[in-house]
């Protein structure tokens, strides 16, 4: 046993390098955003980049194929920036802005919008509050989410998410509001191997008919399979 161990060395790298650029490429069976499909229940290929500065400032972006309706098909993006303040070793607060960009519809208003967020995290648990004055190009929207994960073994984790969206106005101008508040959830498991992370989750929302026509399936509870690679 000694002979084997004698050939082994131990090195430790700082948890936060002075500044770091990280990226992820993911393939998902469905692009669910707050419970709703942004690809009309089709697969999505996504790439994201995040830059973290040692001061706590961070910025990044994500691009993905989207298909919000037959008229809005193409590449969508999220661009964001903010500041994270670490409190001790386990906790952090963050604040920032994220802009969502979607293909321009041939007629009618754009779905693009910007929202601000504040968040708090402790270990593998985080919560965040978002506000926009024009949710997907409509009226004001407030969204609150709690996310958590727990490692079951070195390579398998369970993940969970619960979100609450409050809209004061109907999404489509002139239509009636079925419900102001909707809840969405995710429960899943992730596993890692060969440099890839595999995910399997159940996603659902109780978003009303005006947001999700039943025939579209975009708000139906579904299983999402994903594989991603960090670099």
């Amino acid at each position: 046993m000694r002979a084997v161990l004698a050939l082994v060395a131990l090195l430790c790298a700082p948890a936060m390098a002075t500044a770091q650029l990280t990226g992820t490429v993911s393939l998902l069976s469905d692009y669910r955003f707050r419970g709703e499909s942004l690809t009309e229940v089709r697969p999505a290929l996504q790439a994201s980049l995040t830059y973290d500065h040692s001061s706590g400032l961070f910025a990044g972006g994500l691009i993905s194929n989207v298909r919000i309706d037959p008229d809005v098909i193409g590449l969508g993006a999220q661009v964001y920036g903010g500041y994270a303040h670490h409190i001790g070793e386990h906790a952090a607060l963050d604040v920032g802005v994220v802009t969502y960009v979607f293909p321009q519809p041939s007629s009618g208003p754009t779905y693009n919008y910007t929202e601000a967020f504040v968040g708090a995290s402790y270990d593998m648990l985080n919560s965040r509050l978002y506000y926009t004055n024009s949710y997907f190009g409509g009226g004001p929207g407030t969204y609150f989410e709690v996310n958590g994960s727990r490692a079951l073994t070195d390579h398998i984790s369970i993940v969970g998410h619960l979100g609450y969206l409050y809209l004061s106005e109907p999404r489509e101008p002139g239509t009636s509001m079925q419900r102001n508040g909707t809840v969405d959830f995710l429960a899943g498991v992730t596993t890692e191997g060969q440099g890839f992370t595999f995910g399997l989750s159940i996603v659902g929302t109780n978003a009303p008919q005006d947001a999700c026509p039943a025939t579209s399936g975009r708000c139906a509870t579904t299983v999402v399979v994903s594989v991603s690679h960090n670099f």
Partner: protein
Amino acid sequence: MHFRPGSYASPSYGSGSAPPAQMRIARELAAEHGFKLVSDWPMPSLGVRCFVAEVPEGRSPEDVVTRLVADPRVESAQTVQVFRAAGHNDPYYELQANAKLLHLEELHRFATGKSVKVAQIDTGVELSHPDLKGQLFDSKNFVDGTRYVPESHGTAVAGLIVAKADNGVGIVGVAPAATLMPLRACWENQDEPTAVCSSFTLAKAMQWLLKNPPHVLNLSLAGPRDRLLSRLIEKAIEQGITVVGAVDPDHPEDSFPATHPGVIAVGAAGTPIAVDGEVLGPGEHLITTTLNGSWGFMSGSSFAAAQISGVAALLYGSSRKLGPKDISVILREHVPHSGEETGFVDACGALASVYPALDCRCCRITQPSSERQQARAPKL
């Protein structure tokens, strides 16, 4: 720990693997310095993530470490050290109760270690042992590629600390109302009677323990001084954990972590003091829990340390204001001397210092040598 974009269905919620940047740095280092990454583990208490590197045959790990230390991307690097679980594991025929030597019956009228959490980092404990049932919580394994298995050393150490009282079977631990967290970071080899641990398995257990802190930590193991473990032990003491370590009488210079400042160094009574500030505990013919639900005799500083951890739990249970330093001072102040000889800790006297009502006339330790004579028994 901040906002990340994308579909939340993507598996990005802090999984167990290294964050990409650290993993990438580790991969680059592995390619540049010619080693293979075997495993990784976050050490948030030190703000680092550590990687185990396998150095190919023909290359010296010391050379690789020297180069890594000079690399600005590396926070620290070291060779993985081997630690031995201290003690002889020698079985004995004749029963000599350490309970008598420590006067446990009298002490337990005042203190039993109720609500005190003790952790041991050792080999596996037989969790189903009838004398340990209900006494253990949060058993965890930190030895890669193995499952938590019951082993001799860990089971014996656990029994001395917390074996259940008045259950009609077996023995009474020094702190029978305390609960024990048995962390397995050492393993026993089939072909050798010794148990070993490595810097890495011990560091993983320490990291876990810092997130789930006990009041007392027993480390019945010894090896060369280790930088990463030193830092984790300092964190533990800073957090108010009383750390007890066993002195290896054959290699006092390699008796880390007992030699680390702030750790209560414990040797077996009858052996010379080898480490500054060392205290002694009964160390021979100690009946304790053994594998397969039975009991047997053990000797050695591992088991002396286990009992001193038990006494530390009694002290902490008696006064929650006591910090690691206070407990260390109290124990050292209650070491009887007889000429050149040093006896083992006077547990009653130590406890009386926080329990004025405890009358130690019943159980004053008279001469260290006479007690040891009583305890001597033939080896198998």
